[in-house]
């Protein structure tokens, strides 16, 4: 999948998108061989837009996010190709020093496990203030005031009192709010959230999802939300990219894709989810398992599991084709 046209340009949008990713490729060198984790991913994100990057374990969605932040551990990982234009500037061409000024300040990331981002020996106030001091050169006292402001922004009850508390004193939901405050302390333009609610209970998940949408509305953030949960995408995202084995299978407006899923993989995923008011006795499973990226299938990577596979699928990588104004699919059925 090489030629997905960034949607804003395709639609003749006026402002350039906040983020444009072109043909991103990330490999991991292992003893067993090269793992092609991200294999030519392209998409765009506007300010104030929430893009869902959805797919199953090992599809490359998290490595895509780490590549955008240039946080892929090297070795064994390496970004071997592509461009990541952030506000028009190619992040992949920047020296590491310049990247440090952007990471955490203009783009920030939150993870599934909040404790991974919260050093347990520091108070929440110290952790957030450190980011503010580091990136903005504000004095510590002022930084603490701003830290309280950041906690207020994410709806933390008793923001001033929370400054003096340690991460282990917070509940799972409150930790995720603290991590969001940490990420947003420098008011970045882009937030990447990697499965931010997967470890939370559904009632707490609902609170955090509402908070992310609310922050987008108030701050005009661009958000990339990585998830395996199509329900979360349907509820929160404006656009979505369905990933499979390192590539984007389908990309476009969320409503459009849910109404008319075109890639057999997307169709399979939607049919496989159990739904509360659907009383079918059997779910439609996708047979087989996710391919090994050390030795991916030839042609379309989904073809061994695809109910509609034909001979051409074995030979050719399908290109992305626009089937509607905001809908692209990489499948030979549409070529």
């Amino acid at each position: 999948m090489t030629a997905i046209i960034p949607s804003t340009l395709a639609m003749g949008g006026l402002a350039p998108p906040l983020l444009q990713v072109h043909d991103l490729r990330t490999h991991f060198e292992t003893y067993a061989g090269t793992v092609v984790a991200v294999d030519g991913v392209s998409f765009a994100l506007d300010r104030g837009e929430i893009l869902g990057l959805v797919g199953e374990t090992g599809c490359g969605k998290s490595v895509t996010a780490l590549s955008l932040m240039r946080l892929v551990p090297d070795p064994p990982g390496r970004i071997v190709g592509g461009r990541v234009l952030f506000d028009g500037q190619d992040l992949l061409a920047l020296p590491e020093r310049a990247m440090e000024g952007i990471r955490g300040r203009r783009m920030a990331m939150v993870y599934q496990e909040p404790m991974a981002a919260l050093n347990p020996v520091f108070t929440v106030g110290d952790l957030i203030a450190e980011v503010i001091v580091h990136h903005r050169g504000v004095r510590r006292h002022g930084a603490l005031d701003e830290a309280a402001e950041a906690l207020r922004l994410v709806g933390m009850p008793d923001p001033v009192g929370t400054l003096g508390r340690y991460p282990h004193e917070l509940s799972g939901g409150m930790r995720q709010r603290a991590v969001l405050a940490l990420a947003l302390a420098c008011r970045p333009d882009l937030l990447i959230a990697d499965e931010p609610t997967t470890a939370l209970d559904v009632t707490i998940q609902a609170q955090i999802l509402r908070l992310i949408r609310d922050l987008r509305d108030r701050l005009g953030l661009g958000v990339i939300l990585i998830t395996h949960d199509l329900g979360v995408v349907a509820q929160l995202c404006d656009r979505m990219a369905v990933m499979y084995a390192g590539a984007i299978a389908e990309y476009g407006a969320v409503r459009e894709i849910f109404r008319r899923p075109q890639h057999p993989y997307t169709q399979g995923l939607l049919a496989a989810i159990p739904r509360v008011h659907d009383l079918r006795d059997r779910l439609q499973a996708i047979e087989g398992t996710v391919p090994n990226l050390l030795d991916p299938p030839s042609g379309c990577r989904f073809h061994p599991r695809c109910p509609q596979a034909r001979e051409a699928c074995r030979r050719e990588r399908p290109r992305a084709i626009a089937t509607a104004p905001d809908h692209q699919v990489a499948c030979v059925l549409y070529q």
Partner: protein
Amino acid sequence: MTPALADPRPATRDPRPLVEAIGLRKAFPIREGLFRRRHAAVRAVEDVSFAIREGETLGLVGESGCGKTTLGRMMVRLTEATGGRLLFEGEDLLALRGEALRRRRRNLQMVFQDPAASLNPRKTILQSVGEPLRVHRLAAGRALEAEVLGLLERVGLKGEHLHRYPHEFSGGQRQRISIARALSLRPRFLVLDEPTSALDVSVQAQILNLLRDLQAEFRLTYLFISHNLAVIAHMSDRVAVMYLGRIVELAPRRLLFAAPLHPYTRSLLHAIPTPDPDHRDEAHVLEGEVASPLDPPPGCRFHPRCPLRIDRCHQEAPPLVEHAPGHWAACFRAGE
């Protein structure tokens, strides 16, 4: 409504359910200090009663810490109850000891969430799946191998897998192996504790379909535990909703999802992210968080988060009452 005490076995009027829990409870002592004195207890499960008919699936849903896993483990006596009775075909399993218990227990098996943790990495699949048969001296040698092969084939694996180790399999395949092992003693009752929560949706669908097929083929009775309401809705005949150690609502699946009575059940239903972008629902987000089971709120345990709470809820725990045939809820304002 009069707070008439509920029938302790609200689940069914079937004269002879296969499994019955009557007033089951579990308190985990917290010991601290030099003499390890017991100074408090986490009441993980409090006075839980239900019954399951043969061939039926009872879904048990709730958020983390609600006691659903503890309850599931008690149902197969992996965790000892601190009170109540547990009947299997009318016989109290909690009163059994020694050989009598061992023989009875064959009928009750459990499948866990994480198959990587429940399979010994140093044992081949033949050894793991065959172990219960060896321990119970039901088969050995060739007969054992043939039996294990039959089980593996039934869950969708092959003979070539017999001599491999767990790490050589995908998550979905490992869960198939765990299911084969749970079935090896031909149990009649299975507790399935989040059996697909660690799996991707495409694989989850395969395992859920398999569990349904096995249930029909072997006339199995399931207690299906999950935090995922959609999975529960798909698998269950009846559903019990737990909150902080208690069942707050119990009803046939259709009733529970179409006309939930307890405000907590309704909040849970609203909180599921529906995979339909044309139905976005933010109006009903439940505020607050679950209280600690170490220090549960007095009265109704849900009252601090409840949009319908009244003064009475602060003092009195509402009993589980039947509001419509088979539809039980523990709330003074059920259905309002």
